[in-house]
């Protein structure tokens, strides 16, 4: 079939076609960006935290007893928690992935050197690695004689004296690309700290848009402020029971304290990503709404054209065009319009992405969202035009003779 009559007919409806192209273009641009945002957030939500997420419960204890040594308090609490039935191991920590309490240090690799990046310090009692379920991929766990207090009363001065650290694989790769990190020295405080181990994954307490979500250092430092988080590892089905019991055990030991944020790790993660989930639902709704509105527009205009062209369709049928030909005519016409819209949409999508990157620190639009958007709009266009096109194909040749 020759294309020229089709183009001729399209140029007769210049304004309408232009509007449709604009609409498809705008929809394509927005949908591509929205899809990229959904993709990015979903990726963030799926980041492995590195800990045994479905086996952990935690609660924060803030002691208010006067004149008490926090280290002694923690030891007593830990012993009582460890003795609970169903508890595999316990640790007192000061930070966890998603808990928002972030102590970051600039990390230098030479004494008083520049600090190209900042990493979160995770401190905890012996057994922290095993309790959290961190996977050690190189080196060893801390030795008992390496532990010392954080010294939170004096500006967390423990960081200047601690001998060893375990870092994440991501941090090791960034600091010592392509080298064996074991035995290397880093300077988060004044003194040199030797890397003795590498864990596969450990997310920082708060995520951001940069690549440094796994820049984390573990130190053999004992939390020594009145405010501490106890982590208990247990079987997944025992979590609720253990959590309830743990609060009772701690209160029985000393009621001079505030217990808060008693929750499973799964709940902690859920809370952390609540805003993102809302946002994803909204983005999905927006994309669906846009596609529906555009489909409705395409279908509306197509059916208008079918009505308008009733007589010429009849003539074409009378001079030998088959139903197939008429059907295909409308489908190809739609394909052309949507393609023009997509071409415009690709340009708009990138322009929009640049604007978003500048104003909201969003990621660059990954290229594969463009073909994805294009294909979905082509499909949508064909679906929307199918009804009117079938109606057009059903126009009998006799329509040519009607006024």
């Amino acid at each position, binding site marked *: 079939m020759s294309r020229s009559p089709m183009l001729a007919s399209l140029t007769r409806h210049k304004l309408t076609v232009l509007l449709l192209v604009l609409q498809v273009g705008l929809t394509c641009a927005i949908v591509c960006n929205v899809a990229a945002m959904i993709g990015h957030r979903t990726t963030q939500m799926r980041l492995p935290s590195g800990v045994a997420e479905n086996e952990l419960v935690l609660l924060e204890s803030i002691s208010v007893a006067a004149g008490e040594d926090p280290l002694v308090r923690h030891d007593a609490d830990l012993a009582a928690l460890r003795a609970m039935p169903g508890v595999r191991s316990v640790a007192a920590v000061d930070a966890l992935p998603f808990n928002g309490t972030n102590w970051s240090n*600039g990390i230098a690799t030479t004494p008083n050197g520049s600090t190209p990046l900042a990493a979160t310090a995770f401190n905890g009692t012996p057994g922290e690695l095993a309790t959290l379920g961190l996977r050690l991929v190189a080196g060893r766990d801390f030795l008992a004689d390496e532990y010392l207090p954080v010294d939170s009363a004096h500006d967390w001065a423990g960081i200047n004296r601690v001998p060893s650290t375990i870092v994440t694989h991501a941090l090791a790769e960034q600091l010592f690309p392509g080298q064996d990190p074991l035995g290397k020295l880093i300077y988060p405080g004044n003194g040199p700290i030797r890397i003795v181990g590498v864990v596969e994954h450990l997310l920082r307490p708060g995520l951001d848009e940069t690549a440094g979500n796994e820049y984390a250092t573990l130190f053999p430092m004992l939390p020594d402020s009145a405010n501490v988080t106890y982590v208990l590892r247990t079987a997944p089905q025992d979590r609720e029971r253990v959590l309830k019991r743990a609060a009772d055990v701690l209160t029985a030991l000393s009621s001079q304290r505030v217990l808060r944020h008693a929750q499973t790790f799964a709940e902690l993660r859920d809370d952390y990503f609540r*805003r993102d989930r809302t946002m994803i639902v909204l983005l999905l709704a927006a994309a669906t709404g846009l596609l529906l509105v555009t489909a409705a527009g395409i279908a509306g205009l197509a059916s208008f054209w079918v009505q308008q062209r009733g007589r010429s369709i009849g003539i074409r049928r009378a001079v030998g065009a088959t139903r197939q030909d008429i059907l295909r005519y409308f489908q190809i016409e739609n394909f052309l319009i949507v393609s023009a819209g997509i071409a415009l949409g690709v340009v708009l999508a990138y322009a929009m992405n640049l604007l978003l990157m500048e104003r*909201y620190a969003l990621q660059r639009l990954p290229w594969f969202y463009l073909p994805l958007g294009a294909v979905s709009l082509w499909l949508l266009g064909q679906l929307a035009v199918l009804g009117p096109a079938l109606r057009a194909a059903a126009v009998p040749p006799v329509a040519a003779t009607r006024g």
Partner: protein
Amino acid sequence: MLDYYVSLALRSFTRSRALSTLMVLVIGLGIGASMTMITVFHVMSGDPLPGRSAQLYVPVIDPRPLARDRSEAPLQDGNFSWPDAMNLLHAARADRQAAMSGGAVPVQPTQAHVLPFYEAGHYVTTDFFAMFGVPFRAGRGWTAQDDDDRARVVVLSSALSRKLFGDASGVGQTVRLKNTDFRVIGVVDDWHPQPLFYAQIDKRVFGRSDEFFLPLQTALELQLDFTGRFSCWGNDDDAGDGRTSDHCSWLQFWVQLDSATKAHAYRDFLASYWREQQAHGRLPRPEHARLYGLLDWLTYQHAIPDDLRLQLSLSLGFLAVCVLNVVGLLLATFLRRGGEISVRRALGARRRDIFLQLGIESSVIGLAGGVLGLAVAGLGLWSVRLRPDGYAQLARMDATMLIGTFVLAVVASVLAGLLPAWRACHIAPALQLKTQ
């Protein structure tokens, strides 16, 4: 004439019911979505302290060492170190000034059977109450002398006072915070500025309120728990405790300046302070002292979360697509009625008449879309209120937004109708009749 056009519009509405319904639906959805977000924005960018905000300023100096690494935050949080905050406080060059920090303390009720609980509040200096016009239900704030004496006094929110002392006035009572007894000297009336502008701006700055206020120096002496960002730099061994050292920033500082002249003078004072400190080997960065007005400060600090801005842009984009859609559909319906229009033209109707008639038709669609949009916005705002964020409860329609919805709907649909109406009123009478 107008009512005739309106009845014509309604008739054409019933004639092409499917297409008209589609248009109303599309306009309604677009208006509803964008009005939801515009309303959320409207309530969130309101003035947290009407009548006073114009006199309140945040001075910003940058105490950090010269930039040498890439891990530096792009946005300055405006936090002060202890020495700088104390210097500005004692210089007293503004009409009023106060240094403050967020804090949280365990409250130990005197009743033995009640377990201790945690409350968030602020550690502030004396001018805080007068500067922000904090209303008192009973009692008062403390004096500069109390600040210097590190007095064990506290001002409670009415909610906390009720929780601790019931309906009796809390003033004069004693409350145990962490492990020190404090004398209650004042109870604040319901005072919940939204956002909590004087706090360090973060994701939770909406929907938060303070349950107590106590002297900053007292909190420091008793080593109560501070909340908020606390950033340090440098590796000095002689640094001592971080809170009072000059290499850690964590305090918020606000000043009240009653006139533009005073604001200008204060900015100059800040600049000279910065240079004077440089002479003492401090504040190594080149001087660029700034002074933000309250509302500018909230904008600069992105008090309204970026996610919400994104949602607003998205909803406006959605509205744009909806309007484009309606332009196309209106064009189609108007042109389909070419015959009718050309008859009217042939009977003597001027272009202007046709334009007016079609314009009214699009406004009728717009109004119907507005009604639907209002319902959609109501639904949208309800869903916003279900969000766990602090701003959620603010998301309510007010009179301005109600009228705004209709104005936006009608403006959008009239704009959408302009081009089709203009195109339709150029239908030549004779030619169109001949083809019929």
